């Protein structure tokens, strides 16, 4: 058990890779064995993530050096620079890891019946496990070039999965836009990595944070990193590809892709807080992030109001909710160099942003999965053609209502807790920001009510008279996420204290991250 804990960072990345390449060999024989293997391996990964999380909250950062003579030997033989690829898992990384393990397990259970009639299912499961391994690698790594490699693995498998149903022309177009944007973003990121390598001759984030001198080339590298990673999260001046790609994918793939765009946001936080840190001169960058967050919120929700395609409608709302996270963390970034402001409202702002990542990762995949359930039974995504489905699909109706109340920030549910934390702390920074955020929340509720009315309520249409409820695996998948939402709604204080605030403190505390690698050297 102890050895499992020490080796768990690399096992969490390597086991999905092994399963991804075992799947073709087993899939030629029997389809049921392949499905069982995929779900069983994801349950095991969830177990490993939970025991690693418990140990990190008790004992601090876990470091894993690949290929050395012992897992935490980062500076072998008294060397001054860390050599070999090093995985570094702190409280913020394991926070994203818990989210990704749960959502990918949910999507895998959902896809047992949603993809049951497609051809080429073996290739689907291989690509999905590759995407799981790629995103875990992006979250757990402590090395900039390794981040690039896993970012590209995630993007390639994600694009192939978006274009999976090649018989529809719009799926292929969405996949093409996704891969073009991801290729350009990855190459710009690599250019920034080259700039930093040429100056400091190292690729390790902890070592670079120690040696950073913030010259002009470093500022250019920071700009390139932030631009390339925020393109992939769907930030507003560069968001046109996001609804096109996320609306045409199979619904469980869209649920996983939302979490990969969160992982790109995590990479921005890693670069801004742990790599550049206090030397940043952070007020300017913080204000830029805040303004872009406001713009993202507003443009996202106004474009969502008049959509008729249900998955496209939800993609615009996903863009808008990301704006809340940028707003919260941007306010924290702007006061990073100011210790008393950081203690009064800065830490709460970052905590609110991170809590919103957790909540969004629970209700947004739930909403996408319910839209997928509607598509599964009615074979259309157009809201004008649907109507009166609430008579037949009662469980989907209840899950949709839970998701809607959560995204709009209605008091008993968890969306309200994180939005209230953001409003409270951002108001002390500048009152206008909180007012715009509340306005966006009201428009969100309005648009979701319109969609609810056109899909579920109303008289029962004749062509949908014998539509039944969706099969059991899809309901179990959606039920896991709904259970998570209800748990976080009843005990928000517990979740904040044990999961969110350790992650916040790990982000603000750059010295602990560097010490994990350099081991107490001055």
């Amino acid at each position, binding site marked *: 058990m102890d050895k499992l804990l020490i*080796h768990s960072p*690399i096992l969490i990345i*390597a086991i999905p*890779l*092994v399963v991804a*390449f*075992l799947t*073709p*060999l087993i899939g*030629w024989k029997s389809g049921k064995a392949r499905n069982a293997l995929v779900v069983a391996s994801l349950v095991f990964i969830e177990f490993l993530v939970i025991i690693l999380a418990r140990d990190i909250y008790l004992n601090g950062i876990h470091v*894993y*050096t*690949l*290929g*050395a*003579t*012992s*897992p935490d030997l980062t500076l072998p033989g008294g060397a001054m620079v860390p050599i070999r690829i090093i995985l570094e898992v702190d409280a913020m990384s394991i926070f994203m890891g818990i989210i990704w393990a749960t959502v990918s397990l949910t999507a895998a259970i959902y896809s047992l019946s949603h993809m049951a009639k497609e*051809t*080429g299912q073996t290739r689907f499961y291989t690509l999905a496990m590759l995407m799981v391994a790629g995103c875990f690698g992006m979250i757990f790594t402590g090395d900039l070039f390794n981040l690039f490699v896993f970012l590209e693995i995630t993007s390639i498998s994600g694009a192939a999965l978006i274009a999976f149903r090649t018989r529809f022309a719009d799926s292929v177009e969405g996949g093409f836009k996704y891969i073009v944007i991801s290729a350009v973003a990855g190459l710009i990121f690599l250019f920034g990595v080259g700039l930093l390598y040429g100056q400091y001759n190292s690729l390790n984030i902890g070592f670079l944070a120690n040696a950073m001198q913030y010259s002009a080339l470093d500022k250019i590298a920071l700009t390139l990193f932030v631009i390339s990673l925020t393109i992939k999260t769907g930030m507003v001046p560069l968001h046109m590809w996001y609804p096109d790609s996320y609306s045409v994918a199979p619904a469980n793939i869209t649920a996983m892709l939302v979490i990969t765009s969160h992982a790109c946001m995590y990479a921005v936080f890693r670069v801004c807080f742990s790599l550049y840190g206090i030397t940043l001169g952070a007020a300017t960058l913080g204000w830029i992030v805040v303004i872009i967050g406001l713009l993202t919120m507003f443009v996202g929700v106004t474009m969502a109001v008049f959509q008729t395609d249900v998955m496209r409608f939800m993609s615009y709302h996903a863009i808008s909710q990301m704006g809340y996270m940028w707003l919260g963390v941007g306010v924290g970034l702007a006061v990073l160099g100011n210790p008393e402001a950081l203690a009064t409202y800065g830490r709460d702002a970052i905590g609110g942003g991170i809590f919103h990542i957790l909540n969004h990762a629970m209700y947004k995949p739930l909403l996408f999965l319910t839209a997928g359930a509607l598509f599964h039974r009615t074979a259309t995504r157009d809201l004008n053609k649907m109507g009166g489905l609430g008579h037949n699909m009662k469980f989907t109706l209840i899950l949709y209502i839970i998701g809607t109340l959560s995204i709009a920030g209605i008091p008993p549910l968890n969306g309200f807790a994180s939005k209230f934390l953001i409003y409270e702390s951002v108001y002390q920074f500048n009152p206008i920001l909180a007012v715009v955020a509340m306005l966006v929340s009201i428009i969100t509720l309005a648009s979701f009510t319109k969609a609810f009315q056109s899909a579920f309520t109303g008289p029962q249409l004749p062509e949908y008279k014998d539509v039944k409820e969706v099969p059991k695996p899809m309901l179990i998948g959606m039920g896991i996420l709904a259970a998570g939402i209800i748990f976080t709604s009843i005990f928000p204080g517990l979740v904040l204290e044990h999961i969110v605030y350790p992650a916040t403190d790990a982000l603000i505390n750059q010295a602990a991250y560097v010490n994990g690698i350099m081991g107490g050297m001055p």
Partner: protein
Amino acid sequence: MLSKIVRTVANQLILFILIFGLYVIAHGHLTPGGGFQGGAVIVSGVVMLLVAFSSKELKKSLRERTLSIMESSGALIFIGLAFAGIGIVFFYNFLVGTPIFGRIPVTGPNPGDIWTGGVIPLMNLAVGLKVVAGLSAVVLAMALFSSGEEIEE
């Protein structure tokens, strides 16, 4: 399908290309090369066969099931070699000092000894196998697509 002269010359040349590709893969730890580079050389030989014979002819020899099994086994051998050192650390070079590929090379410029390197030459061979299978499947699929057929399930 091109003329008889082209087909005959292609049949003879593929052997030389295969030998050169395997040389580049096997000496990856001594000279420039390695898994991907040698695999790409062999795939260029397969492309030459694809141009000389048409894709419908080549589909009878390179079946999709064979390529898929070759590709998966290449990847599994690679990850298996990485897991074999998990007693100490993942990716630990456990063959250094043993008679298989385990000699320690002399420092400084030397003529190069092939039995050095530990796990690295074996991983080169696994990666070369995977690259050959994967890129051949890609090239074959694109050629079949363009001529109107599909690879069957």
